[in-house]
């Protein structure tokens, strides 16, 4: 792959990771983590590890996002105690 495109992907990777760590809203953090996972899958494919990239795209960007969102909907903002 061209190195310019990979550089853009690396910059977006770092930006999405920092956003998912520092953002206040949990739903935004989950979406940003899915974006991180998908960009990481594209980088794996560009480095030649197609199998690892496939697993990252399916599990990291698909299943884990759904499970995190379900867990966020089961929590409440204020405690009941």
């Amino acid at each position: 792959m061209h190195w310019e495109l990979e550089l853009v992907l690396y910059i977006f990777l770092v930006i999405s990771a920092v956003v998912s760590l520092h953002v206040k809203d949990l739903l935004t953090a989950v979406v940003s983590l899915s974006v991180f996972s998908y960009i990481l899958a594209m980088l794996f494919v560009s480095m030649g590890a197609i199998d690892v990239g496939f697993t990252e795209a399916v599990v990291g960007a698909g299943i884990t996002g759904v499970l995190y969102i379900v867990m966020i909907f089961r929590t409440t903002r204020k405690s009941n105690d």
Partner: protein
Amino acid sequence: MKHGSSSPIILLLSRVLSPYIMLFGMYVIFHGHYSPGGGFQGGALLASSIILIRIAMEEKVHQLHFNKDYGIPLGAIGVLIFFGVGFIALIMGGYFLDYGLLPFPGMITAELRFYGILLIEVGVGLAVMTILVSIYDNLLEEDDDESI
């Protein structure tokens, strides 16, 4: 998730998209020998197609699609297929998962290896799909017990 979405766009998109994700998962499982992918990735794709229906539709529809009682038994059958093929090869005198020694009559060694790997991948895909779906079901199920 229990009552379904009210937006017609979400209902139509999930209904149209889910069978194609499932078909692609089947393709990934059955072409796992000579292309990227395999049992785990195909099983995760099948699970994501089922979970997509579970998020969008109401409870009656997605229980028709894949009943939650079948989750754990089908996963156990998948694990049993994997270890069954491995231990049959072990009993016939080879190593664990030594496909060339499987006792299927009338096949040469290359065909035995082909169908052995296919059986392993079907077992792994079945186990991964049902266990991921039942994890999702258990996460939602405890809602009923604790809410008063």
